[in-house]
């Protein structure tokens, strides 16, 4: 579907790329989803809002990525005692967990069979829906432990292994339930939500001008992507254009975030495949980059760098020279490491065929971002919907068709090289001007979205303003939502000891998903 088919009911939506909003009734909600699926649109995110105070109903919204733009489809649910809407998970399977999360937070249900809680683990009562406006978000409840009804797998010799939520290593918490025969995995069921911090509700206590600091902390490893998405939404609502120097510096910071994470993952993947040398070298290169961040942007991790109207710290000429030197070292070291990885029989033996996600499975399930690109899905916002400054950088689409750990490694190597090219291009054309412009306070009840291709994939913020410079609702979405369920498929037929390697090759965010 192209956007002109929806022309009559469509209104423009403030965003950093061509976007529109479409208000539909209950029946059209599903029909629109069908049309969109048919046309190859991708589901970006789905969220709900308590609008009973303003519009006498709950609102459910879904954002879709089309070839030429983004469309947000909204449906106002007038029935408030038992609010519900038709599930779109049959068309977009990634919607299933999002819909379960919407139920936990708002008490709006669907016609899905799977009604198990997703974010609520017994930390608050079943009758309390924290994102409703009449619920006090600060109230604390005692924990009532509730067993989670995992799907049972029966058969001769099948047994279960449960791992987590606390894992052996410095990683985030989540639970993985494997059904195995011998060492072979028959089924994997994930349970997430352990790091749910109530971010959506918290946003309502933040002012428009401070919300970026919470957005940056949705997933710390994607802080630049989230804070930029937030600022893009706010700036689109207020009609502010950032100085080009600030825009270029934001992109530079975003590419540094991509480089740091990719290099960390490349080292981790070597290590998980028994090649500690890879970890030693990549962790060193990553540290070099983080130290350069301190000099160039004022911090190793850029949680407070992108601010409304611009960036917090200017780049000096000295720092710029230092960065250019660093890029040369990184490029030659990474090229060197790539040759070592490519020629290491033991590594390749572990990488190839492991955790394969076939292209058609990835298509069907709605894979997105880096994981999609490693399974042949050519989708990168920087290429397809380039917002400023990417519209003048001609970003190269990196794609691999293998869908295995090896393909995810290759995508990372190629993206490191492309990121370094972008960083150099940004520095070469860095305009001399201010790094900030004042952002005025937006009027209440305005919706805007910001979409940024972070290192994992498209990060999205949907921001709706409240009165007095406040926030009425802010929905933050990490692409891990789409990609977590894919691991359940990628692991099938693999052996349990390969799980850490496969999981690492996805490296999804728990915090970004749990909210």
């Amino acid at each position, binding site marked *: 579907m192209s956007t002109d088919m929806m022309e009559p009911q469509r209104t423009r939506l403030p965003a950093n790329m061509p976007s529109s909003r479409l208000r539909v009734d209950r029946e059209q909600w599903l029909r629109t989803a069908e049309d969109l699926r048919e046309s190859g649109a991708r589901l970006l995110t789905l969220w709900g809002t308590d609008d009973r105070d303003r519009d006498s109903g709950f609102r459910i919204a879904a954002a879709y990525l089309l070839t030429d733009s983004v469309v947000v489809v909204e449906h106002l649910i007038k029935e408030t005692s038992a609010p519900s809407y038709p599930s779109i998970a049959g068309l977009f399977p990634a919607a299933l967990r999002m819909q379960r999360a919407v139920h936990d937070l708002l008490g709006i249900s669907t016609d899905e069979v799977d009604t198990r809680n997703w*974010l609520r*683990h017994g*930390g*608050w009562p079943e009758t*309390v829906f*924290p994102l409703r406006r009449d*619920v*006090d*978000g*600060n*109230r*604390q*409840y005692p*924990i009532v*432990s509730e067993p989670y009804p995992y799907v049972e797998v029966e058969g001769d010799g099948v047994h279960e292994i449960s791992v987590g*939520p*606390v894992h*052996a*290593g*410095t*990683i*985030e*918490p989540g639970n993985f339930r494997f059904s195995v025969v011998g060492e072979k995995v028959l089924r994997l069921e994930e349970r997430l*939500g*352990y*790091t*749910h*911090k*109530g*971010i959506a*509700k*918290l946003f309502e206590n933040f002012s428009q001008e401070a919300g970026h*600091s*919470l957005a940056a*902390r*949705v*997933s*710390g*490893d994607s*802080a630049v992507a989230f804070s930029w998405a937030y600022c893009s939404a706010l700036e689109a609502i207020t009609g502010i254009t950032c100085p080009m120097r600030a825009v270029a510096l934001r992109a530079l910071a975003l590419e540094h975030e991509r480089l740091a994470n990719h290099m*960390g993952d490349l080292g981790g993947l070597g290590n998980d495949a028994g090649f500690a*040398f890879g970890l*030693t*070298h990549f*962790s*060193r290169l*990553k*540290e070099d980059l983080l130290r350069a961040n301190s000099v160039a942007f004022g911090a*190793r*991790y850029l*949680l407070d760098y992108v601010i409304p109207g611009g960036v917090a710290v200017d780049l000096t000429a000295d720092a710029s020279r230092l960065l250019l030197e660093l890029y040369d070292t990184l490029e030659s070291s990474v090229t*060197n490491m790539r*040759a*070592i990885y490519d020629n*290491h029989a033991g590594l390749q033996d572990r990488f190839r065929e492991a955790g394969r996600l076939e292209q058609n499975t990835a298509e069907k399930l709605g894979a997105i971002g880096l994981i999609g690109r490693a399974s042949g899905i050519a989708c990168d916002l920087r290429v397809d919907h380039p917002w400023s400054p990417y519209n003048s950088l001609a970003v190269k689409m990196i794609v691999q068709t293998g869908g295995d750990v090896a393909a995810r490694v290759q995508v990372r190597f190629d993206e490191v090289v492309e990121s370094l090219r972008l960083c150099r291009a940004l520095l070469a054309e860095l305009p001399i001007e201010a790094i900030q412009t004042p952002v005025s306070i937006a009027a209440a009840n305005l919706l805007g979205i910001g979409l940024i291709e972070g290192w994992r994939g498209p990060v999205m913020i949907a921001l709706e303003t409240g009165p007095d410079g406040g926030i009425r609702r802010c929905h933050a979405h990490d692409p891990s939502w789409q990609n977590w369920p894919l691991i359940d498929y990628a692991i099938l037929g693999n052996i349990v000891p390969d799980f850490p390697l496969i999981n690492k090759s996805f490296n999804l*965010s*728990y*915090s*970004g998903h*749990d909210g």
Partner: protein
Amino acid sequence: MFNTLSRMLHTGLLTEPLPVPNEAIPALETLQKDVLGILGRALCIRHVDAGSCNGCELEIQALTNPYYNLEGAGIKFVASPRHADLLLVTGPVSVNMEEALKRTYDAMPDPKLVIALGDCGACGGVFAKSYASRGSVASVIPVNNTIAGCPPSPAAILGCILQTVRSSAVEA
């Protein structure tokens, strides 16, 4: 193989003397000696993410890179709380992690040390207390020391670990 060896030779040894965030923190060798003097063996740390944004994890991971070379100082991360002398907790404590954190703490042998890492662990950070978050680590389990920062630098983390081990030795 040749490539790997030549890369090793060209890179050389990178481990730095312990970065010094303040005068009180001595060099790496002193740290190692202290750890040995106090415990008579390596210091074993168990990390638990009790609900962090994952920023703090990145800096803990950095401790094992060749510049900080934590393991070289006789400090290692262990997979089980039963082997741990020190619990390093990140994040505000989400209600969904409260039970798992308490269980991990209970499973540690006495005497146990706990460090709450980052602004979130120290005081709840931006997440504070809510229906979904208990705020600081200290509101759930006893804490010996906290490290401010969002996230704190590897040097600050290392400094705090040392200080905590030291003062526990003095008390003992």
